[in-house]
């Protein structure tokens, strides 16, 4: 890669404008010496991330339809949407994997205690209101 080929294709919104996350590429200058050049990002990588993300959102949309049809609970929806898995969620909340899978069914979702709701919402980084809805 040559210095003038270092891509500057920014793909994603950064929540903290001070830190300014950047790649750093090692590229050859006109004398054949490696030079370090900060890079805002590269199209194919951004596309790969967006493709994976889009796929997740489609899966979540499918679960959303199931929630509306009464076949799944909002917890199942948020797990897919926020890239969570039962074992990892169990690690964050201390609620057993078995119980988490149970709460993915609508009739058991209604029986979650307030304490459990709080810790689930906290693990996701969302509010209890968001956790119990599918908007």
């Amino acid at each position, binding site marked *: 890669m040559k210095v003038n080929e270092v891509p500057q294709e920014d793909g994603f919104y950064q929540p903290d404008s001070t830190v300014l996350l950047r790649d750093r590429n090692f590229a050859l200058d006109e004398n054949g010496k*490696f030079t370090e050049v900060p890079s805002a990002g590269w199209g194919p990588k951004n596309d*790969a*991330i967006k493709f994976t993300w889009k796929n997740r959102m489609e899966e979540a949309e499918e679960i959303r339809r199931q929630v509306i049809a009464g076949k799944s609970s909002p917890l199942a929806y948020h797990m897919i949407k926020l890239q969570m898995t039962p074992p990892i969620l169990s690690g964050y909340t201390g609620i057993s994997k078995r119980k988490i899978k149970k709460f993915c069914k609508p009739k058991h979702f209604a029986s979650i205690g307030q304490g459990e709701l709080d810790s689930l919402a906290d693990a996701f980084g969302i509010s209890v209101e968001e956790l119990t809805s599918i908007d």
Partner: protein
Amino acid sequence: MEINFEHRHAAHCENGVIRNLLNFYGVKLSEPMILGLGSGIFFSHMPFYKMQGMPLTSFRPFHGRILKRVTKTLGIEVQEYKFKDPDKAMEKLDEILFKQIPVGLRVGVYRLAYFPKEYRIHFNGHNLCVIGKEGDEYIISDPIGMNKNRLSATDLKKVRYAKGTNSPKGHMYYIKSMEHYRPITAEMIEKATLKTCSDMLDIPLPMFGAKGIAYLAGRVRKWEKLYGKTDAALNLAQVIRMLEEIGTGGAGFRFMYAAFLQEAGEFLKRPEWNELSMELSQVGDLWRDFSYNAARFFKQREGALSYNDLANKLDVISARETDVFLRLKNSIERGK
């Protein structure tokens, strides 16, 4: 309270934290040199080891390896801690920090507040440095950020106790003593380089090292049959992410290692290493060509290549990398 610590941007978080910590203690090394001394380039594709439900493809050794190798080689003593209790982990951080010692932390990125949401996966090998505290806020030097920034104690505790594979458990480390520090020598570089060559050439399992790339090629050819169309494309996307994820310096560390070979070649007065550097840089270009075509593939652009075509590209890369590292190894062994 803020330690007078020079924040410098780096390509890779672990290299960057090590380089910035060493710099704080007066040892000036470039990031490629850290990568080279830490034998930080690798390849593995493990269908049985899943990350985010997909086979793991990796272009570097497991995290923490580079820190251990570099500090051991240079005779620098590092103190590490892990804690069961998050409050104890925060207390210990403060205790060390207030002795004016910068502290490296391993954190998870899933809940790292300043990361874009698309990057927040369950990856627990991110490294950053804590260099100060004001009120309830920590001053952070994250090497992949152009600037220093701040995190609240609550947010920092969250990422130090991220869950999932390889949970950091409050992992922290700092330089304890420079008493036995040895400046870099030709012998150190050669030894580390031989280790790299051995990692890339000698592991007798098909999924590791330069031949592992050909193994991946074999898997890629079967993906559609094994996983179906969508999951095959997701697997391909995953490989590109790992190649180009923030931190690799482009093409899965190949460019950074090429920069190391150039710098080391000058240090050792081995002009042949500059040739190898240029060849590895070309291999990096081939990796980029692979990513470029793969991205066209899953975006379903017209005229996109098939899995078989992409696998053929990987076979070429595998052969080229084998050749580069074999010649590198021979050049050291001949020199003895």
